[in-house]
């Protein structure tokens, strides 16, 4: 490799490292909520960053476009990961059970979480992946419809429509759970 190419590669690696540091936290939170398992989320985010290095052709600095791209790739990696496990529903529910046991029940016992929050977590698991994705992006990540639209490729109107129905569904499931 020529010195110029080596320098260019080093610069790219340094920029990549900065991007990893900037986005690893939010992406891990997002992936953990999607696959319901901490280790699986680490694998998903790792795959997303590898794809970033291989395929990203935009500017190598944190920006909204890069952020949207990373969220989209992380979602795709999460879906790939779940499909790779083949027993999609079984795997998701199993890990959700593990997560539920380790977080909700412990928190519930120690009084850190209300029954309502436990029901909300349970209800969230019952939504489709697309609905979960939108709820996570809106409620936990605080993204605007425009940003969610960029991440998911859906129109902003469609995002609002799906979110509205997802929230109604969540409310109904939580109501059923409380009775």
């Amino acid at each position, binding site marked *: 490799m020529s010195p110029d190419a080596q320098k260019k590669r080093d610069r790219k690696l340094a920029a990549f490292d900065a991007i990893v540091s900037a986005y690893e936290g939010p992406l*891990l*939170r997002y992936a953990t909520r999607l696959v319901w398992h901490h280790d699986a989320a680490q694998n998903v985010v790792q795959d997303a960053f590898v794809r970033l*290095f291989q395929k990203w052709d935009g500017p190598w600095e944190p920006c909204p476009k890069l952020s949207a791209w990373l969220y989209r790739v992380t979602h795709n990696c999460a879906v790939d990961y779940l499909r790779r496990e083949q027993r999609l529903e079984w795997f998701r529910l199993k890990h959700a059970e593990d997560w539920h046991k380790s977080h909700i029940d412990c928190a519930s016992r120690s009084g850190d979480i209300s029954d309502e929050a436990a029901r*909300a977590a349970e209800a969230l698991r019952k939504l489709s992946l697309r609905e979960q994705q939108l709820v996570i992006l809106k409620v936990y990540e605080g993204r605007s419809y425009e940003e969610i639209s960029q991440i998911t490729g859906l129109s902003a109107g469609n995002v*609002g429509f799906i979110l509205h129905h997802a*929230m109604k569904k969540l*409310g109904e499931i939580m109501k059923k759970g409380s009775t």
Partner: protein
Amino acid sequence: MNQPEDSRARGKPRDGGRADGSSGCRTRCEEIQPLLLDFLTRELGGARADVIREHLRRCSACRAAASEMQATVEALRRVPGAGEGDQKLSEKHRARILKSITHPILAWMDRHHVLVSIIVVIVAALAVFALLRRVRLLKEDHASHITVTIGVGGETDEQPKLDPVSGRDSETGGVP
């Protein structure tokens, strides 16, 4: 555009709504309720938000729907676990990323170690099979060298087929 909506919203209860403002503006409520999440998450611009705020002030059904949605959002926000804390990639995963971008083939083999192991086993089995076959062929070659008989004076190796009962040549019927 918002002004007529606003005035229509204000006029509704007078036109046909009940005193408590709970219904009577069903069409209006059907328009408002899909926007409640947008309103609660501050997605709506000032004028549209004002229209909804005004409607909620008068309509108890939509107020109940809004507070229910607000409760759902708050319950979701109270769910612990993935949402909190400053999460970081583990050292192991960071090392894997670095390996993937500097040695992609090795990283691929590492990631797909089950597939690689299966391929290695199949290749090894084929190699052993080919080796054994080669050894057997060599042995067969060796054995055929021993059994070769060389005819003398134009005689061939072919023996006449004899009839098992008469002992005569079955092809010629004993005639030379």
